[in-house]
């Protein structure tokens, strides 16, 4: 029973609890057993709160027996990236600096998942202060890719990607400032949603770059991401950047037809440096989308390299400002790699930061005019290269390290800068057995449409159902 429960997706397991085919405690036990079994191999968890979660699951089962249900996620156990604050509990943010100081508030995203009935049973490893694209963590140990532990998971939501892929959590919160949800989703073979800037409140989540930060889920399918987005989206007085834009019925809209939708294929930028194996998987995914009745439309994109570099400047300057005091007083407590990244931000001229802000409006206008005047959704690879090894991406481990790090993020960071939603999902596997990811990019607040196309794709394919052997 435990194994069967573990293999289900979030929406499916929530339905099983609702129909009383499984209890909250049974589901929790299945996930805990899996998490403990894979932890020595993957290092995905920083803490598992077994006793607390079991107490909660028992309480929720008692409520179920009285026909009380907290919400659509009643009794579903989840673990999250360790940067979502919960009152009275410390959050490491993947760092040595944050220490054991209990947090004073609870993140709005966690409050909303709590209200929907989810049970948090642990916290997940991550890049130090979410400032790294590989999954390395020199304080708590690197997270290992479930498909091959010699390879990186991608970051910064490294533990989230690994735990969801390993079926050790039904889903997990990540954060995406410059690819940090979509990259681990792509490299671990799971589905990850980077939302429109402002779609989900960031109150109570560790900031990295306030102009670029977004919160979102990593899960096993587009439908699971839709369920989590529905629970979290909407305005929040605690976060002035959280948008008042209407929240659609994300789950209800999944089943709407996709026939006749126009899916754009880039003729430039996303064609650069693409590995033949990655390219072949992307081509096959387009054929699958076309077979759903979508029209494939080639599009020429405006300047994307500028959006990438401007995004890098915003992150560098804002992260350096946020970390300024710690850089002055506790430089030795950062890993050398993250400290060097932050110091680079301190040296960025203020005029370049302001240029990056002033370029954003024209860049978004140029992109929407070139793309969304012609298509409904843009299809692109998440990254051009096969998953590197942990050793290859260790700083100092390879002379080509800067180029590899650039290649990991160059296809995704532009959409943080433009503020657009993007869904990453698995679309094939390389001969090495490692997954390949594609992304579907939508208009501002167009999450419902990219989730709908992603859901239709996943109904027609089985890449998202593959499980790593551990």
């Amino acid at each position: 029973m435990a194994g069967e429960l573990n293999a289900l997706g979030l929406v499916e397991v929530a339905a099983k609890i609702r129909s009383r085919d499984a209890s909250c405690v049974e589901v929790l036990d299945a996930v805990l057993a899996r998490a403990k079994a894979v932890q020595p191999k993957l290092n995905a968890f920083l803490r598992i709160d077994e006793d607390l979660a079991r107490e909660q699951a028992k309480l929720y089962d008692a409520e179920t027996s009285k026909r009380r249900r907290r919400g659509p996620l009643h009794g579903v156990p989840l673990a999250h990236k360790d940067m979502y604050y919960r009152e009275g509990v410390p959050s490491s943010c993947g760092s040595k600096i944050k220490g054991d100081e209990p947090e004073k508030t609870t993140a709005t995203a966690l409050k909303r998942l709590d209200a929907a009935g989810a049970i948090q049973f642990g916290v997940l490893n991550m890049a130090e202060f979410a400032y790294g694209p590989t999954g390395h963590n020199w304080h708590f140990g690197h997270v290992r890719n479930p498909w091959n532990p010699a390879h990186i998971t991608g970051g910064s939501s490294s533990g989230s990607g690994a735990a969801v892929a390993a079926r050790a959590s039904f889903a997990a919160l990540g954060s995406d400032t410059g690819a940090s949800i979509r990259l681990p989703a792509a490299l671990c073979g799971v589905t990850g949603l980077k939302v429109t800037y402002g779609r989900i409140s960031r109150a109570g989540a560790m900031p990295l770059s306030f102009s670029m930060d977004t919160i979102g889920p990593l899960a096993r399918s587009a439908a699971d991401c839709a369920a989590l987005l529905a629970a979290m989206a909407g305005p929040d007085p605690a976060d002035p950047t959280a948008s008042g834009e209407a929240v659609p019925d994300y789950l209800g809209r999944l089943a709407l037809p996709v026939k006749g939708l126009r899916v754009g294929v880039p003729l430039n930028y996303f064609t650069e440096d693409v590995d033949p194996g990655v390219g072949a998987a992307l081509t096959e995914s387009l054929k699958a989308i076309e077979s759903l009745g979508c029209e494939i439309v080639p599009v020429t994109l405006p300047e994307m390299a500028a959006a990438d570099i401007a995004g890098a400047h915003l992150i560098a300057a804002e992260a350096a400002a946020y970390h300024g005091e710690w850089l002055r007083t506790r430089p030795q407590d950062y890993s050398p790699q993250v400290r060097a990244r932050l110091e680079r931000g301190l040296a960025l001229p203020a005029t370049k930061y302001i240029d990056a802000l002033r370029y954003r409006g024209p860049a978004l206008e140029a992109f929407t005019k070139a793309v969304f005047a012609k298509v409904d959704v843009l299809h692109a690879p998440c990254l051009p290269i096969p998953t590197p090894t942990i050793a290859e991406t260790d700083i100092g481990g390879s002379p080509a390290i800067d180029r590899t790090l650039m290649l990991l993020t160059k296809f995704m960071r532009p959409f943080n800068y433009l503020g657009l939603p993007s869904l990453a999902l698995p679309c094939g596997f390389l001969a090495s057995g490692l997954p390949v990811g594609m992304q579907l990019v939508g208009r501002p607040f167009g999450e419902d449409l990219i989730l709908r196309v992603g859901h239709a794709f996943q109904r027609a394919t089985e890449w998202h159902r593959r499980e790593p052997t551990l």
Partner: protein
Amino acid sequence: MMGQATEKYVAEVLALQGVMSSEDAAKAIAPALSAQLATAAGAYASLPFESEPSGFAAVVAREKA
């Protein structure tokens, strides 16, 4: 020469902000910073800048209109 100048700039600007960075750190940061600034200069040439940043919400509202 340019590389040495950037290293000096990095070391001094960090020191001015009260951050003690070793010469090695300045050496490591300088090439990446120089490359980024050079790339930005070329890439930004294709579009106009706004005279002041409008903010994401305003940009989206304008785009929708």
